[in-house]
């Protein structure tokens, strides 16, 4: 039994409410207010290119308006989601100088808005991360490399970055584990939804069986492995005549539902600077059927992690019935209950 004094803080990313925002049902400002009112914080995470028109440029007065809105809602800023858009041009990737400038603009915006942590993506190499470090120190932000499916802690790029972190030893560098990298099964609601939409049982069974076969390993180690999985899923779609409807299911089976063991985050957790508490379903017992919260939370507590876990509901990709605010509340209730059993203050 672990007895610890500290526990992680909870919060949410506005990405969880994408259908409402994209559907123009709630504005950015309304989402912030509602997160506060419904007690879904205190941590607030924002994806810059999702929420802010013109990002990383900010309209005049935006930073002040934003800080005021966050304060009025009783929230705290947790992380800004930056994007490493290396594929900006049709014919080539950005070189390191260009990507450094592209990331720097977003770090400056994070600083202007008051975010302590910035999510960074895998196009940023260890060398580029090292080049960004002095900027992060100057702007007083922490850079967190997101480990997102189909990547995992076993991917050579992440291991190389861990090695670089150990060499540099800076508190401004770390990782952002995304629980979508360590699923134990395909989210049941996804299969049920696509069945209701009319995909054949045959295709769904083969899809699930294929995912399980990927799950038995070996885990994705490089881009060729990922391409092979995407190709296999596309073949399934053609074989069983899935059409447009099957396309998202098949691609998400590779890009969203990773195969790392939930226990395997451990060696990276001393370097965790933020966590994406990704989830899809909450069952009748209040548990997440494909993400064992008892394991991922236990390991965070045992690692002494006290920064934010940002609840990230991504079930909206197919689940249009459940209210995203309710879903977020349910997962946070699961997280609280689990943390209560792990942490004695």
């Amino acid at each position, binding site marked *: 039994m672990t007895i610890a004094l500290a526990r992680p803080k909870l919060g949410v990313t506005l990405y969880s409410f*994408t259908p409402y925002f*994209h559907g123009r049902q709630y504005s950015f400002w309304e989402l912030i207010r509602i997160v506060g009112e419904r007690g879904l914080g205190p941590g607030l995470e924002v*994806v810059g290119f999702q929420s802010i028109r013109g990002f990383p440029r900010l309209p005049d007065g935006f930073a002040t308006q934003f800080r005021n809105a966050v304060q009025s809602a009783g929230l705290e800023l947790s992380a800004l989601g930056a*994007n490493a858009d290396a*594929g*900006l041009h049709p014919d080539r*990737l950005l070189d390191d100088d260009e990507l450094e400038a592209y990331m720097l603009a977003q770090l400056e915006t994070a600083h202007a808005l008051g975010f302590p942590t910035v999510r960074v*993506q895998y196009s940023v190499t260890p060398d580029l991360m090292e080049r960004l470090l002095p900027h992060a120190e100057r702007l007083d932000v922490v850079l967190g490399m997101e480990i997102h499916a189909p990547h995992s802690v076993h991917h050579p790029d992440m291991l190389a970055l861990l090695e670089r972190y150990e060499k540099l030893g800076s508190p401004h560098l770390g990782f952002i584990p995304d629980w979508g990298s360590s699923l134990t099964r395909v989210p049941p609601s996804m299969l049920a939804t696509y069945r209701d939409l009319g995909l054949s049982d045959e295709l769904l069974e083969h899809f699930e069986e294929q995912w399980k076969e990927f799950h038995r390993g070996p885990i994705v180690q490089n881009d060729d492995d990922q391409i092979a999985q995407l190709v296999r899923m596309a073949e399934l779609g053609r074989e069983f005549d899935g059409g*447009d409807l099957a396309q998202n299911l098949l691609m998400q089976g590779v890009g969203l539902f990773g195969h790392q063991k939930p226990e395997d985050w451990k060696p990276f957790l001393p370097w965790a600077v933020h966590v994406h508490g990704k989830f899809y379903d909450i069952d009748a017992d209040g548990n997440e059927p494909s993400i064992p919260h008892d394991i991922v939370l236990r390991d965070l507590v045992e690692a002494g992690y006290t920064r934010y876990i940002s609840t990230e509901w991504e079930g909206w990709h197919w689940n249009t019935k459940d209210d995203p605010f309710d879903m977020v509340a349910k997962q946070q209730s699961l997280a609280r209950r689990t943390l209560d059993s792990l942490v004695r203050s």
Partner: protein
Amino acid sequence: MFRDRLIVDDSLVAEDAGYSIRARMPWYRALPLSCLVEITLAVDGATAPAAAITVETDGVALPLGSTAEATDRSWFVLDDLVIRVAGAHLTARADHDVDLTVGLRLPYLPIKGEPLTMREHLRKTMPAKEFQS
């Protein structure tokens, strides 16, 4: 993503020099116009030639053929993309069949140096409004 929202309801407009429809971003974040890899639009079965298409969003209008260079102009998630087709006239009928595919390069998801692309496709029936100048 958000396939049902791809074509804005009742957005078909007959204009002096052609017609236009409006599309919503089939992704969760803004993307530069340089990431627009495909617009395939057919109204009543007649596919618009790429050279006749202009896209317009957030006060910027560009021929489809020159979006590739537009790395500093974005299609924001809350904005419509107006797709304007020149030199094609709608036939007189109560309802028109609109068939649209939008392809986007996801610039943060390169695999072996080649960013992942996604395509969303939708077909909708709607009347045409007349452009009021």
